[in-house]
């Protein structure tokens, strides 16, 4: 047996000093040679643990083998047979906790860089392959409405249309893609790539109706009465959470949703060429420790902030953000104020935020999340000077649909109750998946839920 190669091929990235001033993609991707070299490290295990680690079950060793053999069209075919959005997943999936964590080489500390290879295949396809004519499945005569065009909705729609069902996606915003468009910044996930993958789903025959706020424009019951045989709800978790401390409505305090929507969806970083503005803070504090907090902090830096703080009430070990994103943020000069929690925001006479009074925290006993509970250190208050604050504490599902859909059961937290294995809700003919069911989670878990629901909807429609 050949000796194991434990040298992961690094992926080139923009220099931190340069990238902190532009919105271009940070990671630059492998060359063909780099991809082949990384692919050649794969030992093609008989028991494919990496596939089990993938929420959509991509045949990982097969597409890696194709890369090694230089058969890129085959790599594309294998990858896209299970994953309609590989250019996105290769960039934003937390591979380190999924496929790469179950890779046989992970035990040796050098798992195959599956995410980077996936990204390479998707980018190669985009640059080199003519658009294939879509498959022409036999029409079933059944129609499915998919609500929301984020990762869950796009995946469910692509799977259902490939099975011969007529599929229409209803999207509330003016572009499709959901959080991939409004939430994740250009420098981490270029919008051209999202648009390309949305166009691919449309090329399969999926109709996309934009500007359609379901629950307002039409209700789910009206959709079902309008000739649709099933509905999939993939509307995500779009409602921002705030801290609920004094001063939170001061000018200059954004929810991460608002800040990122202005910057990413409305392209405020190109104001005034684009009409939507965003405030350019000099001293910016971002509250929270997840990927959205990292994205917000790095956007604020690129908009010209002199100093950007991540303010997080626990320690670095408990941060929910991907390791890679924390490191990217640190490299770019984002300052981490850990074990720190806002007590109140301080404003000037014109209602603008000028400071943030914080507590120092310490970690106590583990809480229900299994992480050690942060507790306030008595008498530890101190003030941080800021002129902009971005609150990135997480999101909950928007109640617009649940409140207008009788028979749909929701949890106390507002998530829709659905069967974990099938996405079936308590309401007849209605399925749900992604953040609307789980609360804010990852792109790939939403895609996995979209896939499971599509399979169950197909069973139902053929039943």
């Amino acid at each position, binding site marked *: 047996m050949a000796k194991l190669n434990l040298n992961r091929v690094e992926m080139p990235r923009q220099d931190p000093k340069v990238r902190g001033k532009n919105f271009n993609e940070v990671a630059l991707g492998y060359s063909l040679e780099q991809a082949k070299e990384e692919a050649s490290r794969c030992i093609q295990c008989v028991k494919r643990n990496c596939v089990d680690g993938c929420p959509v079950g991509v045949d990982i060793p097969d597409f890696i083998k194709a890369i090694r053999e230089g058969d890129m069209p085959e790599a594309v075919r294998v990858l896209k047979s299970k994953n309609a959005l590989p250019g996105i997943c290769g960039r934003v999936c937390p591979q380190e906790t999924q496929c790469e964590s179950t890779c046989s080489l992970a035990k040796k500390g050098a798992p195959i860089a599956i995410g980077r290879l996936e990204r390479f295949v998707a980018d190669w396809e985009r640059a080199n392959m003519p658009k294939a004519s879509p498959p022409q499945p036999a029409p079933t005569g059944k129609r499915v409405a998919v609500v929301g065009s984020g990762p869950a909705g796009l995946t469910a729609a692509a799977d259902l249309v490939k099975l011969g069902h007529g599929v229409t996606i209803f999207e509330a915003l003016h572009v499709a893609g959901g959080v991939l468009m409004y939430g994740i910044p250009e420098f981490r996930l270029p919008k051209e790539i999202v648009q390309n993958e949305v166009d691919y789903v449309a090329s399969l025959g999926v109709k996309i109706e934009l500007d359609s706020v379901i629950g307002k424009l039409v209700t789910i019951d009206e959709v079902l009465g309008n000739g649709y045989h099933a509905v999939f709800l993939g509307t995500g978790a779009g409602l921002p959470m705030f801290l609920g401390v004094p001063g939170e*409505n001061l000018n200059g305090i*954004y929810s991460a949703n608002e800040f990122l929507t202005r910057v990413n969806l409305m392209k405020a970083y190109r*104001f005034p060429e684009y009409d939507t503005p965003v405030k350019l803070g000099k001293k910016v504090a971002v509250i929270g420790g997840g990927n959205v907090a990292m994205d917000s902090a790095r956007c604020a830096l690129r908009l010209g902030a002199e100093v950007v703080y991540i303010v997080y009430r626990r320690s670095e070990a408990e941060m929910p953000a991907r390791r890679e994103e924390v490191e990217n943020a640190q490299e770019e000069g984002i300052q981490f104020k850990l074990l720190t929690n806002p007590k109140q925001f301080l404003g000037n006479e014109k209602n603008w935020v000028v400071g943030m009074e914080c507590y120092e925290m310490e970690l106590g006993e583990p809480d229900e999340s299994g992480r050690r509970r942060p507790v306030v250190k008595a008498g530890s208050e101190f003030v941080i000077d800021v002129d902009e604050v971005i609150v990135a504490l997480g999101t909950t599902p928007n109640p617009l649909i649940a409140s207008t859909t009788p028979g749909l059961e929701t949890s106390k937290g507002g998530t829709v109750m659905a069967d974990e294995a099938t996405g079936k809700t308590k309401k007849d003919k209605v399925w749900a998946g992604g953040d609307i069911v789980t609360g804010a989670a990852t792109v790939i878990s939403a895609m996995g839920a979209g896939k499971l629901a599509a399979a169950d909807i197909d069973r139902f429609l053929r039943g």
Partner: protein
Amino acid sequence: MYKILLREDLVPSIHLFKVAAPVVAKKAKPGQFVVVRVDEKGERIPLTIADWDESEGSLSIVFMEVGTTTARLALLEVGSSIADFVGPLGLPTHIEKFGTVVCVAGGVGAAPIAPIARALKNAGNKIISILGARSKNLLFWEDRLRSLSDQLIVTTDDGSYGRKGVVTEPLKELLASEKVDRVIAIGPSIMMKFCAKTTEPFGIKTIVSLNPIMVDGTGMCGCCRVAVGGETKFACVDGPDFDGHQVDWDLLFARQRIYLDEEKCSFEQWQKNIQPEVKYGKVKS
């Protein structure tokens, strides 16, 4: 794309567009709004619904030229299209038989108040309307409001038409002279605030339609947060109608001014870029 079926210049700076939006027209209710985006580079702005016609599949909006977006909208003619037209958003105005309702409209507020007055009238209320503007050349829909009301009072700040003064003066006299069961006030924020201040001592429930800055209009961003009765609300999904006596007006005013500098910069940039013949005022018809 949403086609403009009819354009009416109500006064030189206030325009009505009737827009083809059949599904929205089917659902629209008094007090709701739409979010409009002029084109690919445009921002999303909320505009209250002025009228709709389900059989024609159309919905009318009325807007005043106040900044880049509304100035760009004003350049559009019949047959051209608006990129995005999303709605109906927000909660409809609460309509029931209250008894006597005073509808106070300031400036462009005449447009959204008309369908509300009509619905209240159809619900069996006696409608007294007060229509106010800075000057005669900014008044519109006097006839329409007259036809929907049992009584109409018109005021202008400069006395160029109707009664000289602001809307709160006749409002106060009405409250003192007859039994009023509810007041609805729609117009500039400052006018709505003073209407609420006027009715408060009389203890008459006063509904105002708040117009904070919005982005998505569906509860997603929280830009439109307002404080009502000490609680934070999102005007886009919890409103836009609120109890005027409970609104934190100073917070609303402050938050409406967040982008003053950017609005100025954007407008100057736009003026620099447009054709000279449309630079100052209307497109030639």
